[in-house]
């Protein structure tokens, strides 16, 4: 409870006494490029395989001859868009971006770089953290869209290669009963996850005390706490929005 209060106070300092718009804008672009470049490959690999595995497993479970094979395509689409793409991507990003944010801020804290900013009269929390959060809010949904596309593609390739269903059947399944709101839902989730991961990791990194050992600990804690927060939020979103 006390930690939650401190966390909220921390978020408050981000928006109080900020730097000029131009500086924040430039910093945000820098951070966004960093997140995008650092994460796109791992997100692509993970989501392609997730789509492939989902497809193969569904076809393994779907032995009833009365159900058309195109159902496999339909189910891959539903599972990846609704759950797997946003959630698995966010968990991967919690490991990649979360540890990066916490490690970077922790190092700046223990090497007095944050103090150096404060002495200059710069609101270090706002200068360092706000761009990271905004950049995450921008980039996570984009990465999730990439993940959706690639996991459906992964399912397509796996389905064709394993002979579980033909390309036509897969596409037919993809096109049946499409609900656009599901994509909106997934993007809302990715916004929520982006905020949770970046703010929790920033909070833990920014408040690191001690030395290199503690920076490592803050990094680890950022990843585990972010993942737990993502899973809880995932459940809440499903409950509230579906």
């Amino acid at each position, binding site marked *: 409870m006390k930690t939650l209060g401190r966390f909220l106070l921390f978020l408050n300092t981000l928006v109080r006494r900020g730097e000029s718009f131009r500086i924040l804008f430039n910093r945000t672009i820098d951070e966004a490029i960093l997140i995008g470049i650092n994460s796109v490959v791992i997100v692509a690999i993970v989501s392609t395989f997730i789509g492939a595995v989902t497809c193969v497993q569904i076809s393994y479970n779907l032995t009833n001859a009365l159900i058309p094979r195109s159902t496999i395509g339909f189910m891959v689409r539903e599972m990846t868009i609704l759950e797997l793409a946003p959630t698995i991507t966010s968990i991967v990003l919690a490991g990649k971006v979360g540890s990066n944010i916490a490690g970077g801020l922790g190092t700046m804290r223990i090497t007095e*770089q944050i103090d150096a900013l404060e002495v*200059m*009269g710069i609101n270090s929390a706002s200068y360092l953290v706000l761009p990271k959060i905004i950049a995450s809010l921008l980039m996570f949904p984009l990465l999730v869209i990439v993940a959706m596309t690639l996991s459906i593609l992964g399912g397509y390739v796996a389905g064709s290669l394993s002979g579980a269903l033909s390309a036509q059947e897969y596409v037919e399944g993809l096109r049946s009963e499409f609900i656009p709101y599901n994509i909106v839902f997934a993007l809302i989730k990715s916004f929520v996850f982006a905020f949770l991961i970046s703010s929790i990791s920033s909070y833990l990194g920014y408040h690191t005390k001690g030395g290199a050992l503690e920076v490592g600990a803050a990094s680890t804690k950022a990843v585990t706490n972010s993942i737990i927060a993502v899973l809880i939020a995932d459940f809440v979103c499903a409950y509230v929005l579906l």
Partner: protein
Amino acid sequence: MIEIHNIQKSFSGVKVLNGISGIFESGKTNLLLGASGTGKSVLLQCIVGLIKPDLGSITYDGKVFTNNKLDLKQEIRRKIGMLFQGSALFDSMNVEENVEFPLRMLTPMSKEERRERVEFCLKRVGLENAGKKMPSEISGGMKKRVGIARAIAPNSRYLFCDEPNSGLDPLTAIKIDELIYELTKEYDITTVIVTHDMNSVMEIGDNIMFLHKGNKLWEGGREEIMDTKVPELREFIFASSLMRAAKKVDEELGSLDELSTIQNGREPEGEKPQE
């Protein structure tokens, strides 16, 4: 000139600063001397506003810093430069960008003006060729120089240094001390230096405050410090055999002087020698 009055600070019930008062004059190197853990860094952090003291006031050239409006605080902060113990260079920026950073953030200078100022400052600290290097590629002494250049770049009126020569070899340490000393005189800066190094004291100690367990026990210039009667300070100074030897030589030279004056037929002034 910076005036501090009755600065007190406790951390979870443990008193670290026990009511410190004093004046730091401009154009002088003011040293905060003391053993490790006596609260020197905490006092410095209180003065620059990184830590809020529990009690006491700090004024910069008559302007109250503690408990003042944010605007006025920011105005003072823009004139503060600080050299950190580990230099605290921004490791995502190269040397030039580090020195330019406060100019970009705090002054309305144009790009061209900033470039000139950066060049000037780097030259002044003797690093004209290192501008494109990253902090991880330069030595500890060079990092300190960059730290100094960054601290004075926005024409700072106040310079704070936390153990500026810790972790440096003796020769580099003296060079850094001398650089800080020269800059202080050149630009009439109010400089406050935290140190536990007697070499620095003897080289550049215009005004020295000796701190012990959160109290100020002695204050004076480097000429007077060897003659102090404060037992804690004597213990601190003569902890090193080098300083003991220096004292001995000093005394022997002193008695030689006296001897020669006696031989010249004049009585030595002041106290008679003990032996």
